[in-house]
């Protein structure tokens, strides 16, 4: 039997537009892009020019500080643009697909015949290492480090999240191979949900499986690390998404790069939310065409409603995104006396609203902040939805005041911005907590590295 960890603090926000476990087939996109900003704190050095022919697995850019860290094209075709923004910052590198999805040839290998360093070298060579993130700092992992462990969360508990079992179906073998490969590098810890039934998860080999039972953020890998073996100062833990483990498995089983994801299109403004097979970095238009409602002004989010960023219908799927969420930007704007109106249709954790009476109801929530930013007033708001053994309010205050020693003492090494997403949602003072935590991590990293 696996160890079961019960999470009691947290919040499941019930939103309208959860995906049903069916596949909607869509036309393959023409253009694909990598956005260097998705790979947190990597300084890109572009190694292709418009007009270059590439195959899946050919590097589009590398990390300036660690050139062995390659960020590769997801498809075969021709580089059409290197888009730059202010101060020549690289925004995206766009590849036009030739429709053949050819990959560079890698050899299929038995991972058990490889050493940890050989697996690492293969991951670097294929560009899959770029999906490895690290705690502390929640940045792309450095290949030079030797991590204490690798954590994989096999479920996402966020509102409107994808069900990993849908993506896993048909990829069980690759998933296991991926885990096997990672286990050559460092001990692998797999977090599964008590609700997940797939055998590939429950009897996964060469990993330490922990079952998590409870509301969001039980699926956050940060919470799982905190419950299993918290990150101490000086330690490094790597994390990788469950779907990326499948990519690794494909590399070793089939000897090719195949970055096909199972992407969900979700949200209240989507007609028939469901899953589709989409190659990483695909232009969203083929996924979105004809499937969005036109009642409200829309907010298209690359990723989850809690952690994703606003994007546009002609933009590209983010490198780490496995869902596109569409919600109304403003619904019922210019609302009068909202501070005292009963607001029956609104969701709140506060009992000054009525949503606590209807726990089963699914809500449509727009992107309005619904209040002005204030100093922290209420206490115990964050703690109620923050299951780690950390005082979130005090950590945030230490970050705001720039007190490095206090940040360390209060456990900043264990957290990532996404761990504060729920706190940010419930915060009555409307502070931008994820931004604050990101800045704190960057500041600390600048001091320490």
């Amino acid at each position: 039997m696996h160890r079961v960890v019960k999470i009691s603090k947290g919040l499941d926000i019930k939103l309208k537009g959860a995906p049903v476990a069916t596949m909607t087939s869509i036309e393959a996109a023409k253009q694909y892009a990598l956005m260097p900003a998705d790979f947190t704190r990597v300084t890109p050095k572009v190694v292709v020019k418009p007009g270059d022919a590439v195959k899946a697995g050919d590097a589009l850019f590398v990390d300036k500080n660690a050139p062995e860290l390659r960020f590769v094209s997801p498809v075969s075709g021709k580089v059409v643009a290197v888009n730059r923004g202010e101060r020549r910052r690289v925004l995206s590198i766009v590849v036009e697909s030739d429709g053949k999805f050819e990959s560079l040839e890698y050899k299929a290998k038995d991972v058990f015949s490889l050493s940890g360093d050989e697996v690492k070298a293969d991951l670097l060579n294929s560009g899959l290492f770029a999906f490895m993130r690290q705690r502390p700092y929640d940045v792309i992992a450095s290949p030079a480090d030797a991590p204490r462990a690798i954590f994989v969360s096999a479920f996402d508990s966020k509102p409107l999240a994808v069900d990993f079992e849908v993506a896993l179906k048909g990829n069980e073998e690759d998933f296991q191979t991926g885990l096997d490969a990672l286990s050559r590098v460092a001990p692998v810890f797999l977090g599964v949900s008590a609700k997940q039934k797939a055998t590939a998860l429950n009897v996964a080999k060469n990993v330490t499986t922990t079952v998590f039972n409870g509301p969001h953020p039980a699926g956050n890998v940060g919470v799982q690390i905190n419950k299993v073996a918290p990150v101490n100062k000086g330690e490094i833990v790597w994390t990788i998404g469950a779907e990326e483990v499948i990519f690794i498995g494909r590399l070793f089983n089939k000897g090719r790069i195949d970055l096909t994801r199972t992407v969900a299109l979700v949200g209240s403004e989507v007609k028939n939310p469901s899953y589709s097979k989409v190659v990483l970095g695909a232009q969203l238009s083929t996924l979105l065409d004809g499937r969005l409602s036109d009642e409200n002004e829309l907010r298209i989010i690359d990723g989850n409603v809690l952690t994703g960023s606003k994007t546009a219908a002609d933009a590209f799927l983010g490198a780490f995104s496995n869902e596109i969420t569409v919600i109304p930007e403003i619904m019922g704007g210019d609302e009068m006396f909202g501070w005292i109106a009963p607001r029956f249709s609104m969701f709140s954790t506060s009992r000054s609203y009525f949503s606590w009476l209807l726990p089963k109801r699914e809500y449509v929530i727009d992107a309005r902040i619904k209040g002005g930013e204030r100093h922290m007033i209420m206490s115990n708001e964050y703690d109620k939805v923050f299951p780690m053994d950390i005082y979130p309010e005090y950590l945030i205050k230490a970050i705001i005041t720039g007190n490095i020693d206090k940040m360390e003492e209060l456990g900043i090494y264990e957290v990532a911005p996404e761990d504060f997403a729920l706190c940010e949602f419930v915060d009555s003072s409307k502070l931008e907590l994820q931004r604050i935590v990101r800045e704190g991590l960057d500041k600390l990293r600048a001091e320490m590295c």
Partner: protein
Amino acid sequence: MKILRNYLNKIKPNFEEGGKLSALRSVFDGMETFLFVPNDTAKCGVNIHDAIDSKRIMSFVVIALLPAMLVGMYNIGFQNYAAAGVEATWWQMFLYGLVNMLPKIIVSYGVGLGIEFIAAQIKKEEIHEGFLVSGLLIPMIVPVGCPLWIIAIATAFAVIFAKEVFGGTGMNIVNVALIARAFIFFAYPSVISGDTVWVATEQIFGLGANVPDGYTCATALQFAANGTEILGATGSALTTCDMLTGLMPGSIGETSVIAIAIGAVILLWSGVASWKVMFSVFVGGIAMSLLFQNTLPDNPVAQVPFWQHLILGGFCFGAVFMATDPVTAARTEVGKYFYGFGIGAMAILIRVLNPGYPEGMMLAILLMNVTAPFIDYCVVQANVNARARRLTKKN
């Protein structure tokens, strides 16, 4: 609604930077957000937000204060007519209380919000809602005889020196309303103590009755401190029923236990106030009064039964509305028990052992406000130490 919105949109540019009326930006901003929820949408971080905001939280505290305020108004009239020995209907009593109370509320809000608007203008921030609560609390915790100009000075002092110098709502260390009261207590002791300020004695607009010169009536706690029977405005003994309904002399909002209990239910149900603080204030009060009852047989206040300690004076009002102020209370959940217990115990301690003034709730809360950061420090430090131990154990 649409017309109003369009009108606001039309005049808005005048209040923005460089506009004719840009000196009134904070006022316009305050009015606009009061009328309409801003249409601002999330720019970074989460894309959706909980519908709760500080405006709603503060509004619920104000709603919770209303029962105590209304009973307080009625009680002003009740005491006046009782002192004069004149019969009157309930609405006459209430109206008299209303005309007595309304100027106090207007002065408190006028002065306090005026300063808040100026501070928001200087700091280029939005107006903070905290004073909506403080501004109503201040007139409720002073005696009916407190002159308006003193309320004005005390409010100004409290808002500037207890709040704005620290950075506004959320940054203050001590409760703003209590600082206003403490200011009166130390600067103008004659209007907040003694036995002539608790009952209104003059007619206003033909309402109320003129009470003969030289009329005195002390508060229940003063009688208790003197060791005599507790008397009401008419000179007859107060019953427990009077103490619960609040028909007795005292600061305007603090007398009615029943009205305060309604407020407590609203605060706890909506989750605005912490039950941990409220509960432990009462535990602390009970524990301390039982202790004194058994150890100080000669002290008349110590011999007041513990339940009477809780329903007399400002104990209930302080426990429900003042101690639970989330900004100045302990912010850790464990700390809240210690913080609340400290207030209850300290209030009774001051009542019993301070011969100068019979009430102790105000000073107890202010003392614990100052102590709360230390309590939190201890609680948080336990977490810090545990993390440090984990690190050394590993090495």
